[in-house]
């Protein structure tokens, strides 16, 4: 129960260790009031972002225009971008620790600023680099910032916020993507150390990372309570980063398959409590999904805008392609969908700032983002015709890059299952059968 009380205070949601993670109990009255105040303040002004959010975005966009976008085409071709260089520039400008604790170089700002940052990140002319940056800021570090010891925060969080170290998140494995609880990598206790054996797959920043936030099994027992998150320096002997995974998109981002052979790391590198890794990772996923979806908004906007520009100039049968009702009506419909997603993201952010559990909304956001990231580039590419298919242009790059959104960081199917759990429509028989099958095979 001590764990539950601490989690409630830190994370802001009431966690009952008896209930499953999805059945989060209600928040206290004062937090609900704060959450409603946040949403009301937003409604009163009509604009979600204040002047400072907009300043953050314009400063970041300037940095992107000067330091990143001029090199994107080359980095995409080379299937590599210099993560240490780029992250150091972002870190020096204070962009890598927006919602992170001030004691470790962060700015301690509320999550609205992180979402503003994510939306502006999307102005980078590819999907791979925003994804790599988001891993650094909101996918591999939230648990460390919230639950890590002072030693771990000093050793790993501070340099990551400064942009001196690159981090990757080690959760997925060849045999366990959506089924996070089913991972096989183990970290067995040996004196004061942990010995790690296993492998990780599809690890973004895998080749350039200085450390990994690793999820591994640290004890026997129920699969939701036997895992820990561990800060693993990537120069530790026994870590093999072998072949580069060549993908159909996100080319500039390095993706690694990583093997662990008797890798020795101090047990004090465990983030928070041993056995709480699965819970922490589920919480980390919420930020990953919210930020990851916010990053998609600008590319979708630009995809539609670029297509409007192109089709207004391209003539077919004597008039602009855009003049065809099917074309401008479709683009209007897609723009509507993107705005709806944007509003859902803002609403979930406002509630999250207020301390509400936004798991259901975030799952809906991720689902919708994944769907739109397929529909928008696909429809737009069609309107570009032959030019879209043959040229290395923004729309064709998005078509490839954004296809990942439905798959990574929580597949569409997993999002649907979460929404069903909240709706009470997920058949209980199926889940307990799966559990029994797994326990039998273990």
């Amino acid at each position, binding site marked *: 129960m001590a764990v539950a009380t601490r989690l409630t205070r830190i994370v802001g949601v009431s966690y009952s260790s008896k209930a499953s993670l999805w059945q989060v109990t209600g928040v206290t009255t004062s937090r609900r009031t704060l959450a409603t105040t946040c949403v009301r303040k937003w409604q009163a002004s009509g604009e979600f972002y204040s*002047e*400072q959010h*907009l*300043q*953050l975005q*314009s*400063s*970041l966009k*300037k*940095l992107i225009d*000067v330091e990143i976008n001029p090199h994107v085409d080359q980095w995409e071709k080379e299937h590599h971008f210099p993560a240490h260089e780029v992250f150091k520039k972002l870190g*020096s*400008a*204070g*962009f890598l620790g*927006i919602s992170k604790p001030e004691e470790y170089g962060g*700015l301690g*700002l509320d999550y609205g600023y992180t979402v503003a940052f994510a939306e502006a990140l999307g102005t980078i002319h590819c999907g791979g680099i925003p994804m790599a940056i988001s891993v650094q800021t909101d996918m591999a570090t939230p648990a460390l910032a919230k639950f890590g010891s002072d030693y771990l925060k000093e050793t790993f969080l501070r340099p990551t916020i400064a942009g001196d170290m690159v981090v990757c998140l080690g959760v997925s494995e060849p045999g366990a993507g959506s089924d996070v609880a089913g991972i096989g990598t183990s970290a067995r206790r040996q004196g004061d150390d942990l010995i790690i054996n296993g492998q990780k797959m599809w690890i973004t920043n895998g080749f350039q990372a200085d450390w990994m936030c690793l999820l591994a099994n640290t004890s026997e027992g129920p699969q939701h309570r036997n895992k820990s998150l561990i800060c693993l320096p990537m120069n530790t002997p026994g870590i093999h980063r072998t072949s580069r995974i060549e993908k159909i998109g996100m080319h500039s981002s390095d993706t690694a398959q990583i093997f662990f052979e008797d890798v020795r790391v101090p047990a004090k590198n465990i983030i928070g409590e041993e056995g709480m890794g699965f819970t922490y990772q589920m919480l980390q996923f919420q930020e990953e999904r919210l930020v990851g979806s916010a990053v998609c908004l600008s590319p979708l906007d630009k995809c539609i805008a670029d297509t409007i520009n192109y089709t207004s100039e391209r003539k077919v049968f004597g008039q602009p392609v855009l003049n065809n009702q099917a074309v401008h009506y479709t683009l209007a419909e897609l723009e509507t969908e993107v705005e709806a997603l944007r509003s859902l993201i803002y609403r979930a952010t406002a509630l999250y700032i207020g301390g509400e559990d936004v798991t259901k909304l975030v799952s809906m956001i991720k689902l919708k983002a994944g769907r739109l990231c397929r529909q928008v580039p696909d429809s737009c590419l069609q309107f570009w015709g032959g030019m879209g298919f043959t040229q290395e242009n923004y729309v064709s790059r998005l078509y490839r890059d954004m296809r990942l959104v439905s798959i990574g960081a929580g597949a569409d199917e997993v999002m649907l299952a979460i929404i069903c759990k909240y709706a009470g429509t997920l058949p209980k028989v199926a889940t307990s059968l799966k559990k029994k099958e797994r326990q039998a095979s273990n």
Partner: protein
Amino acid sequence: MSLRVLVGCKRVIDYAVKIRVRPDKLGVVTDGVKHSMNPFDEIAIEEAVRLKEKKIAKEVVAVSCGPTQAQETIRTALAMGADRGIHVEIPAKEMEKLEPLHVSKILAKLAEQEQAELVIVGKQAIDDDSNATAQMTAALLDWPQATFASKLEKTDGELEVTREVDGGLETIKVKLPAVVSSDLRLNEPRYATLPNIMKAKKKKIAKMKPSDLGVNLASHLEVIEVVDPPTREAGIKVEDVDTLVTKLKDSGRI
């Protein structure tokens, strides 16, 4: 010797926006259009902040004349390192009447009040391209001027300024106090870091009206018409140089 620097920054339509002429042909569409700080003024602010970092300047004061939104421009200057701001409020409706001469009178008055020893402004604004404010401010103050500055150095009690002129580069010395206008190659403005954006919120912006400075917005200029530049016509090929010269003469180009 530590100077106080006054920097003028203007809120203009963002350089990347596609400008549209208003239906009444007396101006351009500004409603709902993205605005930002005049790029030459960003360079001016950057130069002033660098002077402070070199300990040549002790305080940088950013001034903007305009409607409420001009405060956003001042905040950008504060985020870049200016110490405080002055917002000379001009209601949106009266903005069309604002002319370089009014701004010059305002800046001159403020330079005196604030006991500034250096006034830096962008060489021109990208909306009206007047290139007049720096020069008129200097004249009103009876201070020396160094316009189109591409390099600025302080020597004892003086400024050595390299200017970009039609013939090339010209280096002059001006005694302080002086007015300088910044040209493109003077420096590369920094992007405001997030910690400085947050700190800027605490910095003070004083508000006043032109009348507080004894300036009234009487019109000296009248806009007669605003039109789009002519659309580019198709070119033609000619067989030889003589035909080229004839054609150019016929169309009145030479």
